[in-house]
């Protein structure tokens, strides 16, 4: 189920809130509210494809069992194989669903083999819930976590706001909040900023990201024939689409979490304001960076084993990050680019930091935009064609298929679509660079009549945007 759907907004969310807080009125020892929330989360997860539910349920049971075994064993020698088994199972399942075909396709291609591909649909959010549970498994091995009951653990993994697109929360952030007796009761002080954040996230996703998506789709479909201006608009358009889409989704997660009195950690902290690549990764998909830093970069030695080793560690982390984002060579290449940029920054940090901040921003943002082209393109040829167009200084008119994405409703004054497009880009860039982000505003929420009205308008507008009448033009009929 998606947040931006009728069934979520008009049925699932209100009913789940109602059920959860009604059950929360039972005596404190009663855990029915949590049972209800876990079941609701399974419904949320399996709504479009129930066959995924056993996968996540099995994953929860196995990881919980392994963790409990480790937490009750004193000897490290006993815990180690359990932890390795946990790693093997989690990564094995992830590999089976996400990387198997990529791996086999490349083997077939390289060695002329005929290995059978699975052609499986990727279970929703598998990368997120796998990482989330891996953190608990590894912490259980280290015995740095408390023992939770199965219900708390299941709730930590399945809590639906963060289930399918993150943030990748830690057990220590979520379970204690559910354990807090005060949080069992509906609280307007949390609900109000929750609704505020949800509305803004919804607007970012449904209106801004989905509008850019149309132009970006058209642009990447014509990757080989774009002129310089179009190539820049398409590349920056994707940069904006991705941010508004993903951060919008996280804002909605933050908002829904707050409605349940649960504070979900920040995942996007105005990343495009960054002046260097290190700062970017401290602001973009923060919980993923945190996971990779804690569970890969630090165990590899981090930056404590000399510059050369630090650079190698950085490259490893970014290559894995690329692979985490998707099973494909372009994702790996994207990871490689970010790894290389991080290494370069590490090596030339002092002279770079002495540059004027505006220049730093320009270099950093320019790199990020170019790297996203490789992330989005369906082939290396297309990606290279776009980057080449960006640099060729071959200017020309903007094609209709790109500008029409920004047309006014009803096609009003279509001749000005290119100007509307400029306004969209300018306003969106300003929102990224000049305004406080939704998370900051939500945590510093001040109720006013104005933001009540904008909240309502945003939700109503987005709800109406979920459905439209498609016009069928059949030649002259």
């Amino acid at each position, binding site marked *: 189920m998606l947040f931006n759907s009728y069934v979520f907004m*008009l*049925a699932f969310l209100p009913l789940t809130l109602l059920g959860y807080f009604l059950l929360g009125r039972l005596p404190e020892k009663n855990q029915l509210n949590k049972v209800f929330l876990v079941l609701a989360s399974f419904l949320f997860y399996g709504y479009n494809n129930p066959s995924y539910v056993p996968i996540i349920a099995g994953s929860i049971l196995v990881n919980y069992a392994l963790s409990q075994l480790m937490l009750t064993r004193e000897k490290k020698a006993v815990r180690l194989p359990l932890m390795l088994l946990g790693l093997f199972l989690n990564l094995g399942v992830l590999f089976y669903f996400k990387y198997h075909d990529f791996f086999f396709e490349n083997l077939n291609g390289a060695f002329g083999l005929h290995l059978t591909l699975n052609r499986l649909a990727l279970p929703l959010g598998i990368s997120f819930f796998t990482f989330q549970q891996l953190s608990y498994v590894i912490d259980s091995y280290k015995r740095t976590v408390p023992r939770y009951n199965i219900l708390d653990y299941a709730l930590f993994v399945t809590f639906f706001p963060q289930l399918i697109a993150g943030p990748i929360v830690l057990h220590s952030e979520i379970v204690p909040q559910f354990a807090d007796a005060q949080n069992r009761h509906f609280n307007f002080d949390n609900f*109000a900023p929750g609704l505020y954040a949800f509305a803004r996230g919804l607007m970012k996703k449904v209106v801004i990201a989905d509008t850019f998506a149309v132009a970006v789709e058209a642009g990447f479909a014509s990757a080989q024939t774009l002129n310089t201006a179009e190539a820049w608009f398409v590349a920056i358009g994707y940069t904006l689409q991705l941010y508004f889409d993903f951060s919008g989704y996280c804002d909605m997660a933050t908002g829904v979490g707050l409605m349940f009195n649960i504070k979900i950690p920040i995942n996007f902290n105005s990343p495009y304001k960054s002046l260097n690549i290190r700062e970017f990764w401290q602001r973009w998909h923060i919980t993923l960076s945190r996971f990779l830093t804690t569970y890969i970069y630090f165990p590899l030695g981090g930056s404590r084993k000399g510059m050369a080793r630090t650079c190698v560690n950085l490259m490893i982390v970014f290559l894995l990050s690329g692979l985490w984002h998707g099973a494909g060579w372009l994702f790996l290449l994207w990871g490689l680019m970010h790894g290389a940029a991080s290494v370069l920054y590490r090596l030339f940090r002092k002279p770079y930091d002495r540059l004027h901040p505006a220049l730093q921003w320009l270099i950093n943002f320019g790199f990020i935009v170019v790297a996203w082209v490789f992330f989005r393109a369906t082939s290396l040829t297309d990606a290279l064609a776009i980057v080449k167009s960006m640099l060729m200084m071959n200017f020309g008119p903007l094609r209709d298929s790109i500008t029409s994405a920004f047309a006014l409703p009803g096609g009003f004054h279509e001749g000005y679509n290119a100007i509307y497009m400029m306004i969209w880009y300018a306003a969106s860039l300003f929102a990224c660079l000049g305004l406080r982000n939704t998370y900051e505003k939500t945590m510093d929420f001040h109720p006013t009549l104005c933001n009540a009205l904008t909240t309502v308008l945003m939700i109503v507008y987005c709800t*109406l945007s979920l459905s439209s*009448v498609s016009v*069928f033009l059949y030649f*002259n*009929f």
Partner: protein
Amino acid sequence: MMKRKTWALLSLALLLGTIGAICLTVIVIDPFQVYHLATRYMPPIDNTTQVYANAGIARSYDYDSAVVGTSVTENFRPTQMDALLGGRFIKLCTSAGTAYNHALLMDLAFRTHDVKRIVYGLDVYSFIAKVDQTGSDVPMYLYDDNLFNDVSYWLNRSVLGSFLPRCLKAWGQKQDDSIRDRMYNWAGRDDYGPIALYTASFTPPENPLPADARTQLAQENLNAHLIAYITAHPETQFDIFFPPYSAAEWATMQSKGTLEAMLALRGLCYDALSGYDNVTIYDFSAREDWVLDLNNYKDTLHYGQWINDAMAECIAGGEYAVSSREALDAATEKLRAWANAQIEAGGWIF
């Protein structure tokens, strides 16, 4: 400063109030007539949003007989058919519709009305689509009986922004019985005759499928989307006709290499449909005074309204009913000969 509780309650009240008001307005005005017939305004019915309007037409109009088919059935006049065939006709037509489109409408008609007769235009192009393929995306929420998913209609950007204003603009204009004739009717909109034909840009959708794949698809479509209704409703008379494309259309098929496959579908359809007591098959494909006179056509496929009128009269009189497979094959042979003659001559020769 406002309290958070006040803010939340105010926002929720405004939100529910606005959403509720929009839903109520759409349900009451009902631009697509899925809940009730429009009595106070002229409903927005046009070819570009046909699959939406059709749901309401099938549900809410008063009828006991229907014309079903593609654009070649859209110029039928139900009032004329009432007089000729008896009953009360409605058009359930879909421009460039597939057999599945037609089945969805028949399904809705049978669920909501006591249907005595269906006049079905068997456009062979409708039967070579995939069995679950429709001409354009069909809003299934308007066709099923699930009230919950109607929310896609109640909270719909286009309904609120475009269709409701159109209803309000047409407020006070009441629809009379002639709406049944006028809906989807494109007669008089275009030029007819050889000049129009040769400048026409219309070409049927390319379908690179090999002949056996066409046969397979046609059989599946016939079973799922036509025969299923014929057998489920033995009390309903199905008058199924092969429409009179111009002879130039068959030549076009020959030039694309699809003629034999398309001609074979005629036999396949006949064999599949002719064994039912409640089915009569008509074949107007080889009626020379129609298909060899380009003045009847606006492009190679689409004929003028006078042909629809004449077909209705033929059906009423039982003329051009196909008596046997041999009779159909004889007509098919004529189509083949006309097509080949044009190809040999390099143009229209009749």
